[in-house]
């Protein structure tokens, strides 16, 4: 059962939540910029979000291990295989303030 497996530490969930939010803005702005390449304001927002996400990504990787396949360095032993994986219940969280 799920309850037998440890959930991720709340600090890890918090930083992951913030990173996912920033990356989502970047994904959405990227699609917008694909069809509006001359929108200077959107481009500034995109660059700012990517920069913030990069800092947060670095902080997450320093504490919790690699996020990217073959792009992130690893401590010994090889950290990439560490559980949980994103599709597992333990990896996930409910977005605060999103109660339906």
């Amino acid at each position: 059962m799920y309850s037998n497996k440890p959930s991720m530490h709340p600090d890890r969930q918090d930083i992951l939540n913030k990173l996912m939010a920033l990356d989502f803005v970047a994904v959405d702005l990227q699609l917008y910029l694909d069809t509006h390449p001359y929108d200077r304001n959107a481009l500034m927002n995109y660059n700012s979000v990517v920069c913030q996400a990069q800092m947060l990504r670095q902080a997450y990787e320093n504490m919790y291990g690699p996020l990217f396949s073959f792009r992130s360095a690893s401590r010994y032993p090889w950290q990439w295989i560490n559980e949980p994986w994103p599709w597992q219940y333990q990896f996930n969280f409910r977005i605060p303030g999103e109660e339906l």
Partner: protein
Amino acid sequence: MWIYEKKLEYPVKIKKPNPKMAKYIITQYGGPDGELAASLRYLSQRFSMVTPQAKAVLNDIGTEELAHLEIVGTMVRQLIENASIDEIKAADLGSYYADHDKAIYPLSASGVPFTAAYIQSKGDPITDLHENMAAEEKARSTYEWLINLADDPDVIDPLRFLREREIVHFQRFGEALRIVQEYLDSQKCFPVVKTPDMMHMPHMPIKAGANNKK
């Protein structure tokens, strides 16, 4: 190439098993209007697309659809992982269980395995972009019917996220279509269509019975 990032685009945390809902939601994994069909459609069409903007839209939306495929697979797995055999039988999921246990296999809600016949890659950029706009609307409708079938907020929340993305993708494909139409109009020529030779040689008389010659 692609790089995997070890996180979901949107979190999925479903506490309560619901194999009936899994049977419906799996249609967005391997069904006719699902995420696998969407990503394969766009990532295949991009090779013959014109204009930098439309190529980027196909590449980037095709990539995002792979992230959606992962979200849908995660939802289905969490909905069936802790379901009992009795619950699976009661949900009419026994035949799926016989073939796949609680694994994730691409098929539609009615049990039809995934087929490339769901998608088209026509080589005509206008045709392909129209297909994609229709595909986004079909996926949006499917997510709405799935939301109607669901009652668990843990299930409805990611479904709502996925539905909203279909609307954004439809918008971007519409913009790409306008850009491609303007580009083709500016070329002041139409794509060459191969026609029977005789149409280019009106002076050549058509011989009666020519087709009968061995």
